[in-house]
């Protein structure tokens, strides 16, 4: 009956993969969808342009939680460029169920939050590179946390 609430979606919702806090992430971002009260923090450890590890915390509906669970599985081990190239459609394919317009923001919150985390990291890198010498360590934890613009 319920296309949306397939077993594997509920499975990911009940026991999300990569749920928890990542020690010393190099990039992180807190995204939110105030309309639903969904709120999720994505933490990534990037090394040599590759997503070495990823985890998330937060609360939300089955769609947003399952989406985060599936997405984190997907991007672990991928290069940053590969992740940056991911489109909403890629994520929707991954989720594999039909999402109505009203739930699109729930489904895409995870990807949106990852994108923000990566963008912030890139901005900091650029700044660190630009500000030449000094304590310009590009590997300092970028725990940029803020509101997503989604």
């Amino acid at each position, binding site marked *: 009956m319920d296309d949306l*609430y397939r077993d594997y979606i509920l499975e990911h919702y009940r026991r999300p993969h990569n749920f928890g806090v990542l020690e010393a992430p190099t990039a992180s971002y807190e995204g939110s969808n*105030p309309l639903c009260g969904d709120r999720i923090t994505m933490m990534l450890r990037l090394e040599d342009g590759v997503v070495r590890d990823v985890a998330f915390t937060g609360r939300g509906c089955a769609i947003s939680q399952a989406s985060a669970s599936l997405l984190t599985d997907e991007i672990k081990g991928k290069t940053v460029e590969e992740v940056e190239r991911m489109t909403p459609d890629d994520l929707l394919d991954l989720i594999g169920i039909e999402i109505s317009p009203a739930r699109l923001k729930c489904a895409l919150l995870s990807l949106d939050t990852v994108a923000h985390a990566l963008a912030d990291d890139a901005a900091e890198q650029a700044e660190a590179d630009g500000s030449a010498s000094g304590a310009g360590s590009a590997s300092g934890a970028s725990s940029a946390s803020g509101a997503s613009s989604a």
Partner: protein
Amino acid sequence: MADLAATRAATRLDPHRLRTDFPILSTANRFGKPLVYLDSAATSLKPLAVIEAVDGYNREYSSNIHRGIYELAERATGAYEAARAKTARLINAPEPAEIVFVRNATEAINLVAYSWGRRNIGRGDTIVLTEMEHHANLVPWQLLVQEKDGDLEFVPVSDDGLLQLDVYEVLLHLRPKLVAFTHASNMLGTINPVRHMVEMAHAAGALVLIDGAQAVPHMPVDVQELGADFYVFSGHKMLGPTGSGALWARRELLEAMPPFMAGGDMIREVHLRRSDWNEIPYKFEAGTPDIAAEIGMGAAADYLLDLGLDAVRDHERELTRYALEVLPREVPGIELYGPAAEHRGGVVSFNLPGIHPHDVAQILDRSGICIRAGHHCTMPLHERFDLAASARASFNVYTIPEEIDALAIGLREVVRVFDR
């Protein structure tokens, strides 16, 4: 005694019968399920009388008002001003000229904040609100006190969803210029003791704005008896069309207030560098108003007055009592918010443990059941109860107990989906 009981029975609502007035109630969703509409606090359905009032204007006498010397324009002007008189009657306003037509309750509050507020609120002045306000009765005041360097204070809400009047009393010692609160909460359902609260505010020298968006559709409202200074509401929540709404305020207040928006009709004389204003209410109705919608609101006011607002209130109180009894019994684990049926309108907010309200609403939709999920434009109230969101069922004159049964069955199905 028998006679009295008979009269009383005669004035009861027959919701099954009046459902035929609402064409949308005979539609079905994409799975062929009949509509179970439990989102009336967001917007109400519209009876034929309203639909046809709008359609009649559009089809037969669509023309501009006030400035036309021909039959169509006179007919439109007559209908528009008759709608104002009907709206005045609905809340027992002393005179129709005290009714300003606006798009919705939100615009009415912004009008007061801009026009009255910017002239009367200054540095250090306090406005008292409550923790249960809809964003419409909160954010305009935030903007105002930011601009004017004033202060906001909030009457807290108790765990059972009532305003803490003892704190209200203390806050009034701050001598606020304005107190603004909702007549009925759109999340908890709480009906506030507004008459008493107005008296207290007046004794402290404050003016009072009441947000009646969730009250006017559901119970008798008499602004003179309440003693309020400003009273606002939306047409689309009281069986009327979107785009209609009203601000009521006492004549002296309206006359002393500067205009909000400027343009045609609100002026008396315009020169290149100065203008003066038309009399009330026109001073506040710049440009071509939403003639069709306000005429529709007039028809909605008539419809409600014909039903009798006491009967409407009785009907909805019984529904609420029924829901508060059925839901906890039939849906194990359901968490309900808000006070007892006696103190609340037809609004029941709840959560199912471990299931996000969005998922609840989505699964109910399959069965044709429409409820709301989210923060219902009351984020601070949700924060107060430490909720990210809630689900809400809300009722109106056309709601029947069978729909509450359907909701209970639907919620059991939601639990089943998540437990499987």
